[in-house]
């Protein structure tokens, strides 16, 4: 039971992610967590107006089954498997304090960004919406996200995936080192 209540270390989590990819390939599919967004747009009727969404989404319905499972798994883990507040490097805690984020080491997500109160402010709402927008837009533009490129693509030694992952890091570093000081 101790294993369940503790944080899973990298050498447990990494191999389990590889195992997930392996199982999905053995099931005749692939590991990628962002194409379901396209599927949802298609189900919502976006295919009538935009060609990109005009495809046979029924063939991709399996990725929505995975999403349903992921949501349920998240619920189980967050409610019953005693998730701890991640314990972050002390230098990072100080850096976050300078940005006005003080909930570090006490919650799973910063309350300064994810609380209802923050969500209902213009700034808080914009951060969430724009953050989500960039993830969705960038994932389709690059043709994959962390799972599709960093894990699946690099495991298959794909040069385009390496390019995409370098892009992920350029974007992430620019956001945290250059843009965060401006918005927080």
């Amino acid at each position, binding site marked *: 039971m101790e294993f369940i209540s503790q944080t899973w270390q990298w050498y447990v989590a990494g191999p389990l*992610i*590889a195992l997930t990819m392996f199982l999905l390939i053995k099931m005749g599919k692939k590991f990628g967590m962002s194409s379901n967004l396209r599927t949802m747009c298609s189900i919502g009727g976006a295919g009538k107006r935009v060609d990109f969404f005009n495809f046979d989404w029924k063939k991709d319905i399996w990725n929505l089954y995975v999403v349903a499972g*992921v949501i349920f798994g998240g619920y189980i883990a967050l409610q019953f498997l005693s998730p701890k507040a991640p314990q972050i490097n002390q230098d990072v805690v100080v850096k976050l304090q300078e940005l006005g984020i003080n909930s570090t080491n006490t919650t799973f997500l910063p309350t300064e960004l994810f609380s209802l109160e923050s969500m209902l402010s213009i700034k808080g709402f914009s951060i969430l919406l724009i953050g989500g*927008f960039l993830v969705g*837009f960038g994932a389709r533009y*690059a043709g994959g996200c962390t799972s599709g490129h960093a894990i699946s693509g690099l495991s298959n030694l794909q040069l385009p995936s390496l390019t995409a992952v370098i892009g992920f890091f350029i974007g992430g570093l620019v*956001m945290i080192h250059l843009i965060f000081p401006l918005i927080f």
Partner: protein
Amino acid sequence: MKSFLSFFTIGIFLGILFIKSEVASWFRIYEMFQFKSFHMYGIIGSGIALGILAIKYLKYSKAKDFGGKEITIKPKEKGFTRYIVGGIFFGLGWALAGACPGPMYVLLGSGLASILVLILGALLGTFVYGLLRDKLPH
């Protein structure tokens, strides 16, 4: 039904994994981009290392999938612009939201309404990409 249950089960497993390994925590993503912890790099790195072995094994053994069909892993289309530019957009969002698509769904289990805004944003972003696709350099 059998197909639903097998994919749903994989999803549950992945959801628990994203939470218990803290990959779905905004703090872990921030820490990663500050290069202050090995945690995220260890997860991604060991995932890739084993993934390479797994895919090599599948290819050389000419393994079949569970349905008995030959496994083909499609190579990514060649290119540069779409991968670097799209990647940068994605990275900006990954750092700002502190979550990539998998973790976004996982976090719905927290019951926080703010996660719905993230997912709404991601759907909008996907839709706008579809709208602009022919005008964007690829």
